[in-house]
């Protein structure tokens, strides 16, 4: 086993050791900011209301756990891992009604949250990581990390630079062991896909995967499936073209789903990419509280990258009135930042993201991406040529 096992135990300890937080009457009166550690070892600063919300969330997580256990009892352990369920596409082909019913149950269940203890197993299976891993030799990850040990590339230099800058102060990530583990995963991946190499942002994503998954090897495969299958391609490669495409699609969706806000922001000359780029590249890990981020990832790994649009649109939808009355770019950013940082209740977010935003199929979004691609490529190309001509002038 890897050193991560002990870390995993630690993560579970967080949950059992942290007592229900009881803000003192003094704190309540003064509306003080309190600091505490959340389920995944992050230090959270919040007011008394936030603490209360977090306590409620803890209780809901427990209840949700009971629902999952009850289903395991009635449908059998690992019922959700049956291939006809985990591969949504083959649904139509499946004639078995029970399988279809299970798939519907599963989708609804996942939107309500996967219990933290089941996350490693369910993510690994439903995301396709297990399948990906099974197509490689058993020793793939070990061989990879051994083979790249001691090698120095631009990517490894940048990774080394970012290790202590990835969630600094976190009780496990910001330790020599945490740094070394995160390094192996990121360096390993930089060699697996040299087009991606290392892109800033992946440090946060990989760090959070490490906190959830049981072993660093599983975290590595989750990162691989995320970049190679779940997200749109080229999100993290040299000119972030995939990310540019997503941003354009997002702007269109905002105009469609929240037209009042879109019009207002345009009048303020506020480009939503100014804030949304970080959301999409870090998959909200830098903006949302940890359990809320992981709840988004629960759905992301089952339903795909369209989930990112649902969630990003929800931030705007939730603050529609406030946003429409903002007069300045700075106000818009402050509203959005305050909103995301205080979203301690994942259900509040996901209800808006799915019920209020309405359905968007992966198919429609793929079509929109296709539509945007040529424009993005042309823009990036034009920019590159301009920069190159700049270099020529220089000579």
């Amino acid at each position: 086993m890897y050193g991560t096992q002990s870390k995993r135990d630690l993560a579970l300890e967080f949950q059992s050791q942290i007592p229900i937080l009881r803000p003192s009457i003094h704190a309540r009166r003064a509306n003080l900011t309190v600091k505490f550690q959340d389920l995944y070892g992050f230090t959270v600063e919040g007011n008394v209301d936030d603490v209360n919300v977090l306590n409620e969330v803890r209780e809901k997580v427990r209840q949700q756990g009971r629902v999952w256990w009850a289903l395991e009892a009635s449908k059998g352990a690992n019922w959700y891992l049956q291939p006809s369920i985990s591969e949504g596409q083959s649904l139509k082909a499946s004639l078995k009604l029970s399988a279809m019913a299970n798939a519907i149950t599963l989708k609804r269940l996942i939107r309500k949250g996967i219990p933290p203890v089941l996350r490693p197993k369910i993510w690994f299976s439903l995301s396709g990581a297990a399948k990906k891993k099974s197509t490689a030799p058993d020793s793939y990850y070990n061989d990879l990390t051994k083979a790249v040990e001691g090698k120095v590339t631009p990517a490894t230099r940048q990774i080394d630079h970012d290790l202590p800058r990835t969630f600094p102060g976190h009780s496990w990530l910001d330790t020599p062991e945490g740094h070394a583990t995160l390094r192996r995963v990121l360096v390993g991946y930089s060699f697996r896909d040299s087009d991606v190499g290392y892109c800033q942002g992946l440090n946060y994503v990989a760090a959070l995967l490490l906190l959830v998954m049981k072993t660093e090897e599983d975290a590595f495969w989750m990162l691989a499936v995320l970049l190679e299958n779940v997200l749109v391609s080229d999100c993290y490669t040299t000119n972030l073209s995939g990310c540019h495409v997503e941003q354009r699609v997002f702007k269109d969706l905002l105009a469609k789903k929240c037209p009042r806000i879109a019009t207002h922001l345009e009048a303020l000359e506020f480009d939503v990419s100014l804030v949304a780029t970080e959301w999409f590249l870090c998959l909200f890990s830098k903006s949302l509280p940890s359990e809320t981020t992981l709840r988004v990832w629960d759905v992301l790994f089952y339903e795909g990258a369209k989930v990112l649009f649902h969630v990003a649109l929800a931030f705007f939808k939730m603050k529609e009135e406030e946003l429409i009355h903002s007069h300045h770019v700075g106000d818009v950013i402050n509203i959005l930042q305050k909103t995301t940082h205080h979203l301690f209740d994942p259900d509040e977010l996901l209800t808006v993201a799915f019920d209020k935003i309405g359905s968007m199929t992966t198919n429609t979004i793929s079509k929109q991406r296709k539509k945007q691609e040529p424009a993005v490529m042309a823009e990036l190309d034009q920019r590159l040529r301009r920069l190159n001509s700049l270099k020529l002038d220089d000579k």
Partner: protein
Amino acid sequence: MARTTGNKNIQAKLVLLGDMGTGKTSLVLRFVKGQFFDYQESTIGAAFFTQVLSLNEATIKFDIWDTAGQERYHSLAPMYYRGAAAAVVVYDITSMESFERAKKWVQELQRQGNPNLIMFLAANKADLEEKRKVGVEDGEQYAKENGLVFLETSAKTAQNVNELFYEIAKRLAKASPSRQTGMKLHSRSQESGRRLFCCSG
């Protein structure tokens, strides 16, 4: 919005550019919050800050865009520097590579940015004298040749950090016409030249 008598209110967009790990976020945090952390979270996309500086002649409200430094994030930069009134290009005195990157930023801004852009070159991490790779005179000389204002700074010790932003504020105050109040120094770049007005009144 601008009700102060005899005093200008200027809203100005400021952007920080430079290689990763040169201390862009640290400079801004030192200026805005008076804080410094040895390990500052790496910035993705960009981070936004505001700060108000009051001078005798004007009150400057800064909208600060602190951008991500990794080279591939370069393709996002125009979104952040578009319409900026001032730019601070940052390099790390212990890294020659970061100085070379800084020069590229300067070139790009000269070509793409607002022609009236006020540009500063900040040689950061000046506290790490024993690891210095870029000489003071190198930075100075380059700045002089390119019409930039040059300062050696340290976000860690706060050396020249407030000076940097005060100096920018002064130049912005000087550059803005005195009869107008509440002027926005968000000038449009030529490429988006659909609108000709830059004053919000």
